[in-house]
């Protein structure tokens, strides 16, 4: 390698890597940055690792820690996954959950956009109080709400139908998304809307052509939140759905894969793992928007 290429490489590296400060030693960086980060990574990823290895473990390895290393799989098997996919309604549960989560998310985000825009930008009398009330509604725990909601579900004849969940999930999702979007709309300069107002746009045109395009990161993070919460929701799904084939994944794997007092750990873990894959995929696609909405501010 010639000197020139070494220099080029060094310059190239300089662009990506922040300059190494003279007061900063390798030991110091190891202790202040790398060790804490490694601990975080281990703590965060261990449950997934456990889930993954358990779902491919044969039963005899799972129950005998003396003979087999609990952190490793001696002879991996696909039996658990096969059983999950072909002996249960798992694919159907997955589709149901996906449909319910998607519908509830769109419903909630749509309602929240209108609510948040009205509260933050139309500034009607009492807007602030409404905003606060919506936030307080988010704090009411579902364990209190599910009994009155169940009564309503029965009266509307929605029991044991996906609509029961699609319509009840927004009770928690709308307040949260509204609150999140209020914060995001606030970060969009009001001057832009005033300018559009003078340019001749109506409120709805402003919302559609100015505010929403700028709020895409906010919409995406609201959407991800709503989707994840609907996906993982347990108590409503447990209370309002009865038929096996209409259950959502979290409820179904618990009620259908725990037979009596026998936990079918392999299939349970396989079900959880497969169930978390769609959420993980969505996250990985939108992670940049998600972070930018958390750190806020529209860049001009």
């Amino acid at each position: 390698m010639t000197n020139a290429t070494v220099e080029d490489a060094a310059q190239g590296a300089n662009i990506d890597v922040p300059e190494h400060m003279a007061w900063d030693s390798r030991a110091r960086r190891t202790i202040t940055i790398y060790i804490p980060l490694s601990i975080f990574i281990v703590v965060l990823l261990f449950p997934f690792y456990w889930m993954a290895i358990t779902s491919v473990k044969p039963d005899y390895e799972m129950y005998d820690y003396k003979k087999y290393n609990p952190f490793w799989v001696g002879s991996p098997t696909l039996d658990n996954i096969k059983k999950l996919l072909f002996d249960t309604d798992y694919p159907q549960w997955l589709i149901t959950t996906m449909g319910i989560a998607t519908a509830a998310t769109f419903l909630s985000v749509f309602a929240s956009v209108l609510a948040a825009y009205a509260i933050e930008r139309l500034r009607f009398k009492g807007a602030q109080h409404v905003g606060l009330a919506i936030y307080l509604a988010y704090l009411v725990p579902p364990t209190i709400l599910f009994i009155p909601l169940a009564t309503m579900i029965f009266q509307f004849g929605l029991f044991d139908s996906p609509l029961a969940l699609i319509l009840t999930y927004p009770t928690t999702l709308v307040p949260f998304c509204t609150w999140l979007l209020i914060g995001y709309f606030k970060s969009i300069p009001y001057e832009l809307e005033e300018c559009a107002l003078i340019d001749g746009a109506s409120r709805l045109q402003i919302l559609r052509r100015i505010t929403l395009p700028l709020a895409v990161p906010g919409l995406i993070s609201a959407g991800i939140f709503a989707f994840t919460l609907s996906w993982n929701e347990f108590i409503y799904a447990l209370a309002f759905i009865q038929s096996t084939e209409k259950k959502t994944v979290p409820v179904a794997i618990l009620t259908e894969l725990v037979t009596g007092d026998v936990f079918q750990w392999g299939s349970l873990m396989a079900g959880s793992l497969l169930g978390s894959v769609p959420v993980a995929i969505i996250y990985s696609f939108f992670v940049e928007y998600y972070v930018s909405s958390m750190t806020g501010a529209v860049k001009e």
Partner: protein
Amino acid sequence: MANVSIRNVRKRFGSTEILHGVDVEIDDGEFVILVGPSGCGKSTLLRMIAGLENISSGEIAIGDRVVNNIAPKERDIAMVFQNYALYPHMTVRDNMAFSLSLTNASKAEIDEKVGRAAQILGLNPYLARYPRQLSGGQRQRVAMGRAIVRDPQVFLFDEPLSNLDAKLRVAMRAEIKELHQRLQTTTVYVTHDQIEAMTMADKIVVMNAGNVEQIGAPLDLYDKPNNLFVAGFIGSPAMNFVKGKVADGAFTAEDGTILPLPPSAAGQDGRPAVYGIRPEHFRLAGDGLPARITVLEPTGSETQVMAHFAGTPIIGAFRERIAAKPGETIRVSVDPMAAHVFDGATGQRIGA
């Protein structure tokens, strides 16, 4: 194009009144600048013309139409904001075309109008760029282009140059003035910078604490300020004020220095008064009054002298190169024709 009438306009936020009955007549095609210190209500007045603030009482008319209850988009105005308010998710072309696209204009018409505005402002190479890819001056131009495209009756500018660096500000000042001469559209422009006001305006409205202090052509305000506020606000460095009283056909400063009165202010004996003299109206004179120098600021074209004169700190601006050093005394004279006298109690101008 249209004239704008502002008649006895008041603005209240809750119980605080921040505009106390403002009257301004703006003629068709005129370039009017509202100038004043922060918080004087000039931006609020502009926003009331734009329809972004309610009018608490009084009337604003554009052309023959009272616009108090007319929505901004019906007022046929265009506004340039301090932070430009460019739509960050649209290209320069789309930014300029936005208002036209709302009116269902044909694509050919939009292209033609945007093209013309881009031509005028030299924006053709940037039409496909996003605002974040432009420099401050270019963004400023896009904001103006967006206004031009609409071909409105009135242009409104809200401190458009305050985010630019000093050099660019001077260049844009000339550009805006040239644009106005070319388009001849009635323009209302808000700034806190009196130099901007002096250099650009056909007519200046000086505002202070919710009142109009004086309305007039730039040089009229400079030569004949109505009161102490206008005298102190217009001109840089600011006018020097010496307190004292009028006695025996002359002005006596508090420390006893006698200064010559302008003829129009004579015959007001015994009245407490403030004597105003602009920095450039001091003359070096061997037989003049003493001024003890505290700081010298040579700028090349002139030398500014901060000095102690007639019991007051003053600033003088001299074309001559000054050899004296701080602490030394120079002798200066005052031309009575260039001096101003104001009432000590009310601050109003005495004499014509």
